[in-house]
């Protein structure tokens, strides 16, 4: 640990921490553009200048160093005993001296020389580092009289636009493409004040390669100004109108931490949230842009029941009574309950309890999205399992005595010929394979709980409208054993209900003794009853998640 005097604070920091990070940990802002803790440090924006202090022998005193230093590359380390300053400090640095403040204001003045004043039409306004720092550290007027550079707007790829006029050439995006995605599509063209970010082009300007990789959307997040803009979010909303919920991506079993940004009428965008061990700063575009099904107009809003071979909307009481009627006249062995790898641990726990305690069946199945492709990048992996909670659902469903969780062929074998199947699906639309379709077709009475009309709901006798990850609280367990919370952002559409509530309602109607009021209560039951999950109360999981004991991956 290094003992550092930062402004008037005396702080202890890990060896190897840079000044920007050390200051941030202690609530002091050192403005910066090019520095990003997930990328290399070129120190080219010169915004994070700080004032180190050194011992000056002729004066016999500690004085500010002649040169200001960039905070991002100034690394704090334990000094040898004879090099301590004032006998005890390993480093003395000020981030608030007059000289630093002037340097910051001067750099901002340079940054704004060619920057257009188009904040009113810029998507970044409100979450723009240039705007914020100018407000906090900059001068209030420009001394620049000449004509501004107007480099052209560019279409870089499927989801990314470059408003080159706004660019401050911090090169974060270039470094991201080089270091994290390893795809290297971006580079600088021209020189000096004509520097522009661009993709490879022929002399005629025809793109030779687009910014088209599965991590491309991250460059929009890391762009400190409004230069790189997501086409998906373009002109959709001012960021300050958006509410935010910390959640977990449901796109695959990695379990990237995300922030869901929403208004009352639906989700607007999804941004990655830092988690050191899981996704660092990043997420993939499948997750980022894959939320549209949540806002879909096709969402199931009312329960449906089959009348004369047609699925007809009905009300909850009717739908549930049709089910309970049917269930009560069936032998236990003929019922198969299938949980969902798209559902939360809480959903699956209630389902499991329903099957075990109420229906007295131990025949459970696990259903989820089809296996996709795995994508590996130098610093990021998108996993093939496209369900967020396969590991959790598998454990939870099999947690009660004697429960058997069937998957794949074994499940469909069991399903074919079953009298009643209660299948919970959820997630975006999933096509059915032939064997699955045949098995489900052969079922006498098929109850499907889903969020969108799909091939599965087509076969159902009763369809119950469930909820997506954005509409409920709960926990997911990712492939490496991290249990993490998802949080409710928006209300479910129409009369759709949270999945575990539907199951509980069914259980109640069949005489079960379940009475959970909110997801956290179920989490406590899970903590009590499921081996390995003893610490997983919602309070303890918090925003960072908990890694299950014994998960070594």
């Amino acid at each position, binding site marked *: 640990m290094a003992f550092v005097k930062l402004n008037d604070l005396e702080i202890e920091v890990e060896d190897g921490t840079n000044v920007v990070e050390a200051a941030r940990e202690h609530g002091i802002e050192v403005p910066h553009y090019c520095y990003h803790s997930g990328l290399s440090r070129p120190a080219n*924006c*010169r915004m994070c200048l700080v004032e180190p202090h050194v011992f000056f022998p002729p004066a016999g005193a500690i004085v500010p160093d002649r040169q200001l230093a960039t905070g991002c590359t100034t690394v704090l380390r334990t000094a040898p005993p004879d090099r301590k300053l004032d006998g005890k400090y390993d480093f003395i640095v000020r981030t608030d001296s007059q000289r630093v403040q002037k340097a910051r204001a001067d750099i901002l003045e*340079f940054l704004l020389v060619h920057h257009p004043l188009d904040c009113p039409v810029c998507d970044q306004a409100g979450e723009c580092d240039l705007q914020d720092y100018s407000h906090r550290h900059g001068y209030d007027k420009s001394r620049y009289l000449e004509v501004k550079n107007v480099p052209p707007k560019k279409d870089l790829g499927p989801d990314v636009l470059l408003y080159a006029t706004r660019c401050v050439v911090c090169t974060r995006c270039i470094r991201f493409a080089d270091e994290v995605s390893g795809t290297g599509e971006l580079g600088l063209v021209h020189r*000096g004040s004509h520097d522009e970010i661009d993709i490879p082009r022929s002399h005629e300007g025809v793109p030779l390669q687009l910014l088209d990789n599965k991590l491309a959307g991250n460059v929009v997040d890391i762009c400190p100004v409004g230069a790189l803009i997501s086409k998906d979010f373009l002109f959709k909303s001012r960021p300050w109108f958006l509410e935010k919920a910390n959640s977990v991506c449901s796109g695959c079993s990695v379990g990237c931490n995300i922030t869901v940004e929403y208004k009352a009428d639906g989700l607007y965008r999804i941004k990655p949230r830092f988690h050191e061990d899981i996704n660092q700063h990043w997420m993939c575009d499948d997750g980022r842009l894959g939320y549209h099904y949540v806002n879909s107009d096709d969402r199931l809003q009312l329960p449906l029941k089959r009348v004369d071979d047609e699925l007809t909307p009905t009300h909850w009481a009717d739908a549930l009574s049709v089910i309970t009627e049917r269930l009560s006249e069936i032998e236990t062995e003929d019922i198969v309950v299938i949980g969902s790898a798209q559902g939360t641990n809480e959903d699956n726990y209630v389902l499991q309890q329903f099957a075990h305690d109420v229906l007295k069946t131990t025949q459970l199945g696990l259903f989820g999205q089809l296996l996709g492709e795995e994508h590996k990048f130098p610093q990021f992996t998108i996993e093939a399992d496209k369900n967020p909670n396969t590991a959790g659902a598998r454990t939870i469903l099999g947690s009660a005595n004697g429960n058997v969780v069937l998957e794949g062929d074994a499940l469909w074998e069991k399903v074919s010929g079953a009298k009643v199947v209660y299948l919970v699906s959820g997630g975006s639309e999933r096509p059915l394979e032939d064997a699955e379709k045949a098995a489900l077709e052969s079922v006498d009475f098929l109850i499907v709980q889903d969020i969108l009309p799909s091939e599965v709901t087509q076969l159902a006798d009763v369809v119950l409208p469930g909820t997506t990850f954005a509409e409920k609280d709960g926990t997911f367990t990712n492939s490496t054993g991290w249990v993490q919370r998802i949080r409710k952002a928006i209300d479910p559409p129409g009369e759709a209900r949270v999945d575990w509530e539907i199951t509980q309602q069914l259980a109640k109607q069949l005489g079960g003794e379940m009475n959970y009021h909110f997801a956290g209560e179920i989490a406590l039951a899970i903590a009590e009853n499921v081996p390995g999950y003893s610490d997983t109360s919602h309070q303890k999981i918090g925003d960072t998640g908990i890694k299950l004991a014994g998960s070594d991956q």
Partner: protein
Amino acid sequence: MVQERRILYEHLDVPDINTFDVFRQYDGYTRFEKAIAEYQPDDVAKMVMDSGLKGRGGAGFSTGLKWSFVPKDIKPCYLCCNADESEPGTFSNRYVLEKNPHLLIEGILICCYAMGIETTYVYIRGEFTLGKKMLDAAIKEAYEKGYLGKDIRGTGLNVDIYSHPGAGAYICGEETGLIESLEGKRGQPRNKPPFPAVEGVFGKPTVVQNVETLCNLPFIIGNGVEWYTQMGPTYADTRANPPTPDPNTGTKLYCISGDVNEPGVYELDLGLTCSELIEVAGGLRGEEVKAVIPGGSSAPILTHYELDTRLDFTSLTLAKSMLGSGGIIVMNETRNIVDCLLNIMKFYAHESCGQCTPCRWGTPWVRDIVQRIADGNGRKDTMTRPKFGVAENGRWGDTGETEEIYEDLDLLESVANNIANVDTMTWNTICVFGIAVSWPAVSYMRKFRPEFEATIQEGKLVTLPVAEATVSPEENYAYQQRFVPKEFADL
């Protein structure tokens, strides 16, 4: 009358000196052979240290000291010869490359022997097509004669030289920009530390030396340290306690251009004064000296008051200028300083690599301000303010008079100083390009302020008589002092 002392250039005009055989007749490679035969590598390095040789590329950093920073245990270690001579007003390396490339190869061999280096890259300015052709031919010949390659002359020494052409960027003459370019990247300087001596080409320790520096090595080895240190003055560095010797030894290839009768490269001992140099170059063309740029276009300008300044590294540093690459440009009374500054600023605005913010957007801004002034559109406020200057007590203070406010001159000084502050000698940029921009901008403007003021006042370029155009050194010094924070005042 001062005489030229030709050492590096002694045989420059011998016909066919670029061929191995002729070079050999004039002691070619004997110094290298002597080094191998008589000295251990460490002895060679010590001789270079003792000779007081300072790097001729521009910074004037002690070559021996630089070599001592190279870690001995990390191999491979590289030598990078900086032949990207691109400072306006400088053209001495070019003659060596074109006429006597074997001398450079011999210098490289000595350096490689001293530092245990096996691979050398010569980064040649792209425009030097003839120089590269001659050097390549010489390298080929040296391989054939067994002075390059594996096991040179049976000594077990391996040295390979690769010549690499630049692509025309001024900034690739900066040592880390050169290294980036050599590695195949954009020519953008690196953050320092780590310095190239620790982490240079391909992440390995690298010695970066100018052509002229390397060409000095054969003569230091051949004639001995004592002979070498006789040339040029040795000062005492009073910043150290007790004062340490600050040698400015050897000869320098001065490239004299501008208003002199016989411009060209002159090899002279360090430590001659400006006026002596003008005399060597055939005297002034014109009536009187208006200004002298002492070390390439990035060096602060000297006025006719400062013609007695000795042109060596130490004296020019004390005069708040620099010897730089030794490109001396003399201007007579017909020259307009605003126009000169505009010319230089156009060059720097074009050559900024654009990596770091202050330089990327500050440099063209400075150019635009100077352009505006030169176009006659410079702004002058209608108000006046108290005039600060040399007060009665000889210190800077309120003189009791008023002065007119030239907004654009204030702006020019402020913007240039925000890129790199010439008074405190601090810069907010990654490399010293920033100071190469603000040094001329601020020094021209301060030392020839009347000419700038007249240009703004008249709305067109005005060339004033020398005496009127120049600010006296006392006033200029006092003006500088007011910006220097107290704790740096005596540095």
